[in-house]
């Protein structure tokens, strides 16, 4: 069945705007209401998922939209986290007002440098150059004492946002933290959804599909890719900031290729090319592991969570060629297939579309 990877007017017609926004808004509302029902542990878990979802979304812009597979994305996540800790004051809460932009700009600046050089390469080479630059950043933090070496460093006070004497946000308070994180997810999602339907986003999709043709039509693809790279890095930086605000600690592992790999796995698991997939993938990856390593549920088997998690993912790969999000489309199609017995002349199905 033919599916366009861009939104076409034909699809637009069948997809009313309300339908389009209903699900994300509903999810956001539910998330916002959750603290009323959840224990502080579960609330923490939701936060972790959401932070990784933002991180995964940022990578989705690169991998899913632009077709740039980066195996060094954690560098930006980690650098922003380190900047947050290093720039925070040890005697009082620093202001989110400048700390967050600083962290994001720091990540963006490194991305500008890395991107400018690594975008000269393609495909697997690009994967490996991004990895190389991330490993360099990793070793800078791991092997020198600027960030406490391999043990990392700690945040003395979580940042806050004050206007005059009024404290708008104080991240020492779990609820404030919670709503900031949810707010950031909503903002990131909205930004990326907007990018995807904008001309910028369509140009990125074009670059993913056929960069040669894009250049021949008059797009400076290098600049486009660089812009996407920097934006993605800044969003990863946002996730890094939230991570350190939540955990209060950073260490070089945040920049390691394991972390970059994990977030890549999340978006593949969720289904490439879809923002929702990135979020679902992040949630699934974290929850599965949480679930399988829980001794209350699995008893002794919980010790072998690697085995159960691995087998589950193998199963997923085997049965879901388009990731978890593809399952929805598969299901819709099989339902549609049952409803109409004679083949429909139209070539269009609904896209996994955000």
């Amino acid at each position, binding site marked *: 069945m033919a599916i366009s990877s861009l939104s076409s007017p034909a699809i637009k017609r069948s997809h009313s705007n309300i339908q389009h926004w209903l699900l994300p808004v509903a999810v956001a509302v539910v998330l916002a209401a959750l603290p009323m029902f959840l224990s502080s542990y579960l609330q923490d878990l939701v936060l972790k998922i959401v932070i990784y979802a933002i991180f995964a979304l940022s990578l989705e812009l690169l*991998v899913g939209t632009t077709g740039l597979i980066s195996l060094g994305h954690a560098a930006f996540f980690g650098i922003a986290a380190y900047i947050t800790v290093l720039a925070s004051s040890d005697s009082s809460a620093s202001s989110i007002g400048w700390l967050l932009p600083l962290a994001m700009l720091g990540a963006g600046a490194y991305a500008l440098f890395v991107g400018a050089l690594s975008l000269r390469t393609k495909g697997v080479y690009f994967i490996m150059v991004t990895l190389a630059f991330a490993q*360099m950043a990793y070793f800078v933090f791991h092997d020198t004492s600027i960030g406490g070496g391999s043990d990392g460093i700690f945040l003395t006070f979580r940042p806050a946002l004050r206007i005059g004497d009024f404290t708008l946000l104080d991240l020492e308070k779990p609820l404030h933290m919670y709503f900031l994180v949810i707010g950031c997810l909503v903002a990131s999602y909205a930004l990326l959804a907007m990018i995807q339907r904008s001309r910028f986003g369509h140009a990125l999709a074009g670059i993913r599909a056929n960069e040669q043709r894009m250049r021949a039509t008059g797009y400076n693809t290098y600049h486009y890719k660089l812009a996407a790279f920097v934006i993605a890095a800044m969003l990863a930086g946002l996730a890094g900031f939230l991570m350190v605000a939540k955990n209060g600690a950073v260490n070089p592992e945040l920049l390691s290729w394991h972390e970059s790999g994990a977030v890549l796995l999340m978006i593949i698991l969720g289904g490439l090319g879809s923002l929702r997939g990135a979020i679902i993938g992040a949630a699934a990856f974290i929850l599965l592991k949480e679930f399988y390593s829980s001794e209350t549920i699995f008893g002794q088997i919980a010790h072998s969570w690697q085995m159960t998690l*691995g087998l589950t993912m193998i199963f997923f790969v085997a049965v879901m060629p388009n990731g978890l999000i593809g399952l929805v489309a598969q299901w819709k199609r099989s339902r549609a297939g049952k409803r109409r017995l004679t083949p429909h002349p139209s070539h269009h199905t609904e896209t996994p579309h955000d």
Partner: protein
Amino acid sequence: MDISTFLAQCLNAVQYGLLLFLVASGLTLIFGIMGVINLAHGSFYMIGAYLAFGLAPLFGDQFLLQLLAGVVLAASFGFILEWLFFSYLYQRDHLQQVLMTYSLILVFEEARSLLVGNEVHGVKAPPWLSGSIRLGDLMSYPVYSLFASAACLVVAIGLYFVVNRTRLGMMIRAGASNRDMVRGLGINIKLLYRVVFAAGVALAALAGMIAAPMSSVYPGMGGQILIICFVVVVIGGIGSISGALIASLLVGFVDTFGKVFFAQFSGLSVYLLMALILIWRPEGLKSKGY
């Protein structure tokens, strides 16, 4: 650094480079030529090392026979693995393979832990290889290391020959670029790829078996070698055996002398090398341009 130390260091670099090549060669085959992004390659290396640990008591002094048995076992294992887990992935997005091989790492690690536990084990070199050669007044060189280097070279040459000079090698490479067309020429690509995958696994396992007496066997040994092997393959130019050989030697030198001269930053050195080379030659050292 005086001249004799320098020469000794060069020897170290070459030896490390060759060992890297042995592990990377299987990866070039699976990753570079078949186009499967195989994260589980390190696990196959680990499996090889544990095979050496498990087989050594059975074979006693028959070291070469033991290697042979290990290779056969690993190849059969690879054959089955491809059939079960990879045969249906080629048509899909390449990234799905990443997910699959990552999952396999988890499974292998846990299986290892359940089967042989988490201790560190030593593996003895066979008696006829356990001597050493004096080198200067202080150092001596274990004969086994020299044997390992020689084995690496043999594998390098053999692999180069098969991939570049035989029709089998051409078919493999052709399959990576256009599967359908290869089928249209009457070649059973499914079987072909299963065999190549098995060969890749066997190469990794062979590397593990050869390395075991030097490095001992321990949990997590596969993960450490994986990334550096990817680096080697990419620096060399994907799919190029001779490139991989040059790259492993280069990495050997940079790593060795990096440790000596810039201890504080030696973690960076190899990655710096890779970044510089790829910025200079975006397709690796030995890209053929086609």
